């Protein structure tokens, strides 16, 4: 090799810091390439005999690719890179953490920079994706601080899986489960959102997030990536003198965003009569069926006091407080040319809008990268989290749900009159006629809930360059958490006077071991090849103990040791998936790129006869603008297409054979079918369970025009899932509540469009705009033969259900309507009960998932000020409101006003078709019962869930730090931030259409959860 020319050089970013991992390649022969080390330095050996002037191409994620000329006889090069201005030569992180040029990809991938999450924070990073990426439907839940998120990419692809993407940190999967499962639509007391796994990631540690939407993009991750992958790349250290310090602090406040529009004409009471003594006040504590609100001072409320009979319009504002969140994070980064490090510590303290609800998250993160020799490198990442949630808010049915009180209390009663919710003995105070509808203040003050999660995420990898361009890499990652939760329904609860205890203790471990061999070469001068082969072993294990108990023996003493009856139920799921995979990427003249990949998976959760599946994928891209001469109008044009198949196993173990377990007994031994760990009901297992498959194809076009001032990125995709593994409800008369089936076919197809523009670009002022819109058509093509529908969820009392119905989209709301006469269209009445006759409960009401999503971002920059405004919207879905159902029964909605004075005329036909015409009045509660009975017609509480929101506003001022030279500050920004500021369009009059409380597939229900909030605050970011 002696005599070969060796080039040495450094690559720096615009801020003067060295760039690690930048690729330096010879333009004329890309086989000659290298990457910068931890100090930004590189050495490139040129081919023998190469002595003349050459051109180098230098590229790195997030920077404009540069071409640098090197003169004959020049041996040292210094390159300074600019931040990316356009996406033409963008390098993106793809599956397994592999960096690839975006132009070479045959599928759509969107990258979001970390700083977009750190200024206007969401506690849960996944919520911050809302509106940012075409085809990504992200929504935070309204369950208070520390709550979960629900993210779906390109629609719901499986009938029974959770449909959420796989979260991957630095190439390795992490756990995103909600301990003990997501809340249900109709649960009580213990029905809280315990937070998901992604909620534990600190936004400050994020370098970038890549969203892999299509099957080809994610095929290397196998089955769990069928719903897409969210790849998180964390920040790494860099070689520099001294230690770089970054400090970020945010303080935000939040308030209830939507106040219901109640009737304030008639006040507390029954049958037109105001309550004038304590007993009648208690009978009507949640009923606004009284007299005309007239300021009468004879009014007596549930506190036993006389009050003026006036409308109390601020009960929500008075019941909930201003919530607050304070986040402080600090990071130290540095290193030398061999080793770089970054350490960060973050503390988040959140107080919910419900008093006494808090969430605290401490995150410590350490990243180390070291190049031990030229060939041997190691990387390690360690993260420790401590998350503590206190008094998470319940939703669903009434018992223990504090939100019931402010929403359903009589409209002339001030909710604060119920304070403190308990008497001198600490027992719940009566405020209404149903003990199950808890006093919200009693719940706030006496119910106890606490959870702590100790989480450790560790990754370590070793890479060794065996021969030139052949790199072997081994990675092990472990995501482990220990979770402790208890929920106490206290002594003195009216409905359950001796109390209840529930606890969950669990250890969850997600281990992945990955070995890859990658090889890069050029087959000819024009054809580059890179190949990858690998194997992965996934092991998931949980050790769960559920502790339940009844009746605290010594009143008001809350310990598991103090229960009259107790049970401890173990659940120990174990899952293994082994995989081998390989891929080949071909690059012809940087014009045409082709990718072939294949993977075989073995699943422990499937039948031993059918437990493995091979699936292939292929993708390509063609740079039209480089291949042919396009008019100058076009800067860049690319066509792409891909086809991929992914197979998957059952999400839970032990679904092959029916087993039997002991039932907790204080007497004789009892045994039954082992109930499903999550639902508690009996499930029919399936000995023939085989993999499901999901097949995707997509095509797209990327255009940059007018010197990249205008960009279009268009995608069409189609995704078909067959042999889905579904846990579906069956008639209880089968002896079981659910069955596991390999059935069905589900199709998602849609389009995504991203428009980017830079209308103004001057020295002092610039305006960038980005608009994304997506439409996803979803259809349940087939279920099992003879099976027209399966049920996912049911509301309290089954007033509405959520089903998968052949021919309908995923998640169809189903319920009842008022029967109408076929001939006249008039309502059919029952002469006995004077109520409309209910149809069967199989009426299709609407789709729970919005098919249209969009987001519009406008970024303005004027001198030191930047203003960023994000609007987003979702359209075309329906939502069923249980709060409105109850508010109708309680006479709180304006729709219950007709008939209060003078009676309500019911006109229609009777069940024989004969005319029916009668007047009902308030006497004997007939009118009240008439409206109460409205709960049996689901259609009355169904609303269009479409909305447009002003999701986010950030106004930033870049402080001129060079004037404060004593502090050695590199940069400092202060920002005003606001999230969920206004709802610009909605059809739900009384609540926020995003009022969701579970991350499960059971969407489309408003179920008396915590109200959604708007938040605003300040952010300070300083770099030393």
């Amino acid at each position, binding site marked *: 090799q002696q005599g070969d020319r060796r080039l040495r050089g450094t690559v720096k970013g615009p801020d003067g810091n060295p760039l690690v991992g930048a690729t330096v390649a010879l333009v004329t022969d890309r086989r000659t390439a290298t990457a910068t080390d931890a100090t930004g330095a590189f050495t490139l050996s040129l081919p023998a005999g190469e002595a003349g002037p050459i051109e180098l191409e230098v590229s790195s994620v997030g920077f404009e690719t540069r071409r640098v000329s090197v003169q004959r006889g020049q041996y040292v090069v210094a390159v300074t890179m600019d931040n990316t201005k356009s996406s033409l030569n963008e390098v993106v992180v793809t599956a397994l953490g592999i960096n690839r040029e975006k132009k070479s990809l045959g599928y759509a991938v969107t990258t979001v920079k970390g700083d977009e999450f750190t200024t206007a924070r969401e506690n849960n990073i996944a919520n911050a994706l809302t509106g940012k990426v075409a085809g990504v439907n992200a929504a935070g839940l309204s369950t208070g601080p520390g709550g979960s998120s629900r993210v779906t990419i390109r629609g719901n692809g499986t009938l029974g899986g959770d449909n959420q993407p796989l979260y991957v940190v630095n190439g390795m999967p992490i756990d995103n489960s909600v301990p003990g499962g997501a809340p249900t639509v109709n649960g*009580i007391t213990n029905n809280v959102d315990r937070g998901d796994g992604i909620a534990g990631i600190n936004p400050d540690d994020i370098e970038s997030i890549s969203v892999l939407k299509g099957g080809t993009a994610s095929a290397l991750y196998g089955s769990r990536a069928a719903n897409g992958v969210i790849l998180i790349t964390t920040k790494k250290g860099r070689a520099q003198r001294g230690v770089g310090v970054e400090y970020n602090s945010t303080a935000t406040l939040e308030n209830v965003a939507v106040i219901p529009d109640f009737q304030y004409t008639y006040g507390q009471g*029954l049958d037109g009569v105001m309550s004038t003594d304590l007993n009648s006040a208690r*009978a009507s504590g949640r009923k606004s069926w009284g007299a005309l609100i007239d300021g009468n001072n004879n009014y007596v409320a549930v506190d036993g006091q006389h009050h003026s009979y006036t409308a109390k319009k601020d009960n929500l504002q008075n019941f909930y407080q201003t919530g607050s969140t304070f986040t402080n994070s600090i990071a130290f980064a540095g290193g030398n040319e061999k080793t770089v490090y970054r350490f960060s510590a973050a503390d988040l303290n959140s107080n919910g809008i419900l008093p006494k609800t808090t969430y605290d998250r401490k995150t410590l993160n350490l990243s180390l990268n070291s190049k031990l020799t030229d060939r041997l490198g190691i990387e390690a990442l360690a993260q420790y989290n401590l998350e503590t949630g206190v008094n998470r808010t319940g939703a669903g049915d009434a018992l223990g749900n504090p939100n019931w009180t402010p929403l359903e209390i009589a409209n002339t009663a001030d909710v604060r009159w119920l304070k403190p919710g308990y008497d001198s003995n600490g027992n719940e105070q009566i405020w209404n*006629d*149903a*003990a*199950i509808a808890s006093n919200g203040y009693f719940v706030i003050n006496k119910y106890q809930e606490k959870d702590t999660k100790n989480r450790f995420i560790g990754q370590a990898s070793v890479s060794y360059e065996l021969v030139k361009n052949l790199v072997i890499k081994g990675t092990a990652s472990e995501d482990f958490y220990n979770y402790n939760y208890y929920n106490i329904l206290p002594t003195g609860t009216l409905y359950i006077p*001796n109390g209840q205890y529930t606890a969950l203790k669990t250890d969850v471990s997600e281990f992945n071991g990955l070995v890859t061999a990658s090889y890069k070469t050029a087959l000819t001068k024009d054809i580059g090849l890179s190949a990858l082969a690998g194997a992965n072993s996934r092991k998931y294990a949980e050790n769960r103990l559920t502790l339940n108990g009844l009746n605290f023996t010594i009143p008001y003493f809350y310990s598991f040791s103090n229960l*009259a*009856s107790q049970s401890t139920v*173990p659940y*120990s799921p*174990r899952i*293994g998936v082994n995989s081998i995979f390989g891929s080949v990427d071909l690059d012809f003249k940087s014009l045409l790129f082709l990718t072939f990949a294949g993977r075989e998976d*073995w*699943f*422990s959760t499937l039948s*031993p006869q059918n437990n*493995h599946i091979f699936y292939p994928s292929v993708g390509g891209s063609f740079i039209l603008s480089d291949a042919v001469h396009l008019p100058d109008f076009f800067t860049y044009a690319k066509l792409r297409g891909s086809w991929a198949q992914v197979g998957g196993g059952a999400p839970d*173990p*032990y679904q092959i054979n029916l*087993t*039997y*377990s*002991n*039932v*907790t007994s*204080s007497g004789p*031994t*009892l*045994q*039954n*079918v082992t109930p499903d760990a999550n639902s508690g009901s009996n499930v*029919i*297992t399936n000995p023939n369970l085989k993999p499901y498959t999901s097949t995707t194809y997509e095509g797209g076009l990327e255009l940059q025009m007018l010197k990249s001032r205008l960009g279009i990125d268009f995608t069409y995709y189609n995704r078909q899932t067959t042999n889905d593994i579904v846990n579906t*409800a*069956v*008639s209880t*008369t*089968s*002896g*079981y509540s659910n069955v596991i089936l390999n059935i069905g076919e589900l199709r998602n197809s849609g389009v995504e469009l991203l428009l980017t523009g830079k209308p103004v670009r001057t020295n002092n002022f610039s305006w960038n705009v980005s608009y994304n819109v997506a439409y996803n058509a979803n259809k349940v093509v087939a279920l099992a033969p003879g099976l*027209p*529908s399966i*049920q996912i969820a*049911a509301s309290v009392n089954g007033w509405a*259900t959520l089903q998968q119905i052949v021919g309908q989209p995923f998640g169809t709301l*189903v319920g009842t309507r008022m029967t109408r006469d076929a001939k006249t269209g008039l309502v059919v009445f029952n002469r*006995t*009960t004077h*109520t409309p006759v209910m149809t*069967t409960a*199989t009426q299709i009401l609407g789709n729970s998932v919005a098919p249209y999503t969009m987001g519009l971002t406008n970024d303005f920059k004027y001198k030191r000020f930047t203003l960023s405004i994000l609007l987003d919207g979702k359209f075309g879905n329906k939502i069923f409101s249980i709060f409105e159902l109850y508010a109708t029964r309680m006479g709180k909605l304006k729709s219950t006003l007709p008939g209060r004075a003078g009676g309500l005329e019911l006109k229609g036909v009777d069940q024989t078709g004969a005319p029916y015409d009668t007047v009902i009045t308030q006497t*004997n*509660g007939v009118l*009240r*019962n008439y409206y*109460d*009975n409205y*709960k049996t017609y689901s259609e009355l509480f169904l609303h269009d869930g479409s909305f447009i929101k002003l999701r986010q506003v950030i106004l930033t001022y870049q402080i001129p730090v060079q004037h404060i030279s004593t502090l050695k500050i590199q940069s400092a920004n202060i920002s005003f931030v606001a999230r969920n500021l206004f709802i610009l369009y909605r059809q739900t009059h009384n609540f926020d259409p995003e009022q969701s409380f579970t991350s499960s597939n059971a969407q489309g229900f408003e179920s008396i959860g915590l109200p959604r909030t708007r938040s605003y605050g300040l952010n300070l970011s300083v770099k030393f």
Partner: protein
Amino acid sequence: CDKGYKQLNVNPDAVSSPTPQYVFTLAEYDGCGYGGQYGSSAADFLLGTMQYTTSYNDVAGFGSKYINSQVQQTYGAFNAAYPDEINELGIVMKAVKTDPTKINWLAEARIWRVYCYMRQTDLYGDIPYSQAGLGYDSSLYKPAYDPQQSIYMNLLSELDAAAQSLDATKSTFGASDLIYGGNTAQWKKFAYSLMLRMGMRLTKVDIASAQTWVTKAIAGGVILQDADIAKMTYIANGQNINKNPLVLDLWNNDYIAQNGQTNTEGGKYADTWISYLQSTNDPRLPIISVVWIGGKPDTTSSKQLGMSQDIANKIPANFVTFSEPNPATVLGLGSSKLLFTAAESYFLLTEAALRGWYSGATASSLYTLGIQAAMRHWSIVAGSAGTISASAINTYVNNNPLVTGTLDQQMKQIYTQFWVSIFPDAQEVYNNYRRTGYPALVPNNYPTNATGGQIFRRFLYPISEQTLNTTNYNAAVARQGPDNLMTRIWWDKQ
């Protein structure tokens, strides 16, 4: 690449095959409970329907008020029975049916299954039967509904076949059988007693079959001795599954506070019930009823007071003065639940004698034996707290003989006494009320009721059957009549 996966997918906390006797014990517990989800369970609200109890609260008072807004309370029993006792008995029977040494296990499971199915069909009419509970074994997820008539005929022949297959020389469930400890002779009596109950059920719809089966049952030998009473035993402390389910319901829904005032759901004894017991100077009144005076339970008969079923959703000022179940007797969480008593046999035999189907004793003597047996039940349930002296019993039976008259007049006496005697088994009282019209309760024409002021004739199928078993549900409704509370089931022919 799947080494060890088969083992990995084995649940370490469960076994792969059932232990039949343990499943059978659970089936006994479940078969004695009534499904009801944190609301009035069927057993509880039928106490209201038979006017033993009521509540000022409309929701909790559904049983006594039949208000339209709470008809969904009738779903519970149906939803609970199949995944619980029906499926459990299927598991037991599958495990033992091919083993000739376990013939008694099979027979007792069959008899118990008859008991469980009868309760369901008596509430709902046509129900899934021949195809039910086969979700796992036969992948039958949508069972057809069988007509009640064919269910009844099949259950009757099951009783006969199972009773005859019992063999005292073979093994039994032993201590796992909480009802009889595996005693085959007693299971046989239980089987023929159930046959007597079922046979008599047919008097309105098929008098000839009724006579055939009643005669057959009596010939087989029914429960006449206290020692043979079919009763389920419970434990007062510990897990809810081990407690008397009706008591647990009453306890949790209302009487847990034990002060007469802060009843969770506003429940009390109804005035119909207390007034009747007072009018006959019934010595059972102080056994079963208390009124809370100064925070202490008082059993003085004259102080007992029932609450009106008309109170509209507001706690009455004198709420504390109304009677409620005696915590020392009716509310014993560990007290036995009587499933088939000697008293019931005697009253059914009284009717059989009047109809000329039985001549072993006179109707009036059988009637007296029935009352005497019923009075003794309370000492079986509650020990000394429930013991009624022999002299008090004699005084009562002397004052309340079966007065001769028309069949209807005597039926009125029998089934009014049945109402008093079988308390708190409201379902069997409800069944005989529908069959005979007695006791002659005055239906509560409460405003907003769902029935036009009549006592309902059946329960509603759960709404989930409309969506999960649509075709078969529709066929059942088309055959039986609309799925409402006033549609009469097969044996309740008008």
